[in-house]
């Protein structure tokens, strides 16, 4: 594979030799790549290529059989999920996973969980410091809702929002964890063209804040538009890492991703 420069110092996330086997299936086969600080990396590949497995290993939901994950200069390979969130990794889900019985604001507040210091006893004693922290958390949550354009939905129940808004609310909730890296799992799935464009803008706004993003996306138009680099996975292997333009001109990628038909059409 091409495009990896190991000497690069500006990598926020560096994955080396990641391997994961589920029974007889190699979901991840010796995958290595790096994500530059402040960039957007797209993840494409046919169904079953191992995109979600890769996300699950970076977030800590599943443990790799082999390989290492370096984040922000230190190994996180054996850290549990909540410690990785504290370290600065947040995610959204392929199917919306908002807390249905809570308001949008409360959903975002749950996202701040690891950043709030008061614990069980803090809640009981409720010192002025705890009260102040809670007020500041609300303020910050509202600011995040404004940033994502959801302020008018703050007090609505999450399950009452249209799908597009729910997807945005998930991103808002991920932003509340104060992340360095956000993983978006198919953020445009189920969105119409207008919503999809708004999503593209939001991704650029998040990037402008200095936050690094990784996204799994089937909407090639969106991926081409927002991604700095694209990583192509096929049957658990990373077959290419390059700019969107290079990817579209890469015959190997086109074969794997779009199949032989693409050639006929061309």
């Amino acid at each position, binding site marked *: 594979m091409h495009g990896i420069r190991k000497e690069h110092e500006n990598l926020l996330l560096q994955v080396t030799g990641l391997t994961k086997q589920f029974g007889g299936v190699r979901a991840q086969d010796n995958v290595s790549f790096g994500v530059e600080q402040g960039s957007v990396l797209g993840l494409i590949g046919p169904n079953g290529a191992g995109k979600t497995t890769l996300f699950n290993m970076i*977030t800590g*939901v599943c443990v790799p059989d082999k390989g290492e994950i370096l984040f922000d200069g230190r190994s996180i390979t054996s850290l*549990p*999920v*909540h410690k990785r*969130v*504290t370290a600065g990794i*947040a*995610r959204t*889900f392929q199917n919306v*996973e*908002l*807390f*249905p*019985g*809570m308001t949008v604001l*409360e959903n975002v*507040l*749950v*996202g*701040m*969980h*690891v950043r*709030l210091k*008061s*614990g*069980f006893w*803090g*809640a*009981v004693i*409720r010192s002025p410091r*705890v009260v102040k922290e*809670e007020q500041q*958390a609300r303020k910050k949550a509202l600011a995040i809702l404004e940033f994502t354009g959801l302020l008018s939905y703050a007090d609505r129940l999450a399950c009452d929002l249209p799908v597009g808004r729910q997807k945005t609310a998930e991103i808002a*909730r*991920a932003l509340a*964890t104060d992340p360095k890296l956000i993983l978006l799992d198919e953020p445009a799935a189920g969105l119409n063209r207008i919503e999809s464009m708004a999503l593209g803008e939001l991704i650029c706004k998040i990037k402008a804040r200095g936050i690094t993003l990784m996204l799994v996306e089937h909407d090639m138009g969106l991926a081409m538009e927002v991604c700095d680099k694209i990583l192509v996975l096929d049957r658990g292997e990373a077959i290419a890492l390059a700019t969107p333009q290079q990817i579209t001109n890469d015959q190997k990628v086109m074969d794997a991703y779009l199949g032989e038909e693409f050639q006929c059409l061309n």
Partner: protein
Amino acid sequence: MDKERVHNLLFVGVVVVTGVVVENTYLLQVMTFIGINTLLALGLNMLMGYAGQVSLGHGAFYGIGAYATAYLSGTLGISPWLALVCAIFLAVGVAFVVGRPTLKLSGYYLGMGTLGFGMIVHILFREAGSITGGASGFVGIPMLTLGPLLFEGGQSYFYLVWAVVFGAIFLCRRILDSKTGRALAAIHGRENAAVALGVDAHSLKLTVFMFSAALGAVAGFLYAHFVLFISPDSFGFMASVKMVTMVVIGGMASVWGALIGAVVITLLPEVLHGFADHEMIVFGLILMGVMIVMPQGLTKGVMERYARYKKRA
């Protein structure tokens, strides 16, 4: 003043006035039991209603509280208040040891695990005769005193129990209205999403499990010094089931629900005495009826019906 504060004051007022007005010892006794049961339901509601984790073995913590104070204050003769502290620590410690592996289970499996735990503890109460008095029970639990105050049945004990209930409601409210409460609701809603946001689900469940065990132990302590005689069967499988029933009947995830559940489950057997042998059948039928008509529990069920009625009127 906001609505919630009005409700709280009204509630406290009703309890205080009840204690003054009611002179019938039997009634006071029943209402004291309601208070003790409310404590049990409150604790279990935190675990079941809010965190969404089923426990079918909570009678064990109730029993641990009762037997710990019975042994420490009755046999060893130390101050019951010191015994209370020990009882709480013991219950919390046991909850930690049991909860750590068990709370990794979920749904029916957690129910089975806690069920087994409850049974083991029940057998221990029955078989450790030299400490617990065995199947025939523990006699000789001292009455509670505080300075010149003697809490013997009647009014004084009624107020003591309800003061503790108010304290417990206050505690639960504070915990629920915080980062911890939000995280609990998040785990209940979608555990994987909560975990992905950095909620340490296992340790939070364990914390709530220990908290509810502590409330159970306090209830056991109050029960022991009230009835002054305890036997293993008060803390067996049926006690655990009764606690779950209180939470479900009253309404999950509601502090008032715990109270309503405790009222219903304490009063029903008293009211049904007339049915003699058929008492349990009628009891079961009523519970089934409530669950069919108001599956979300009495509190929410009645409130919804009232709202609908008001709309129509």
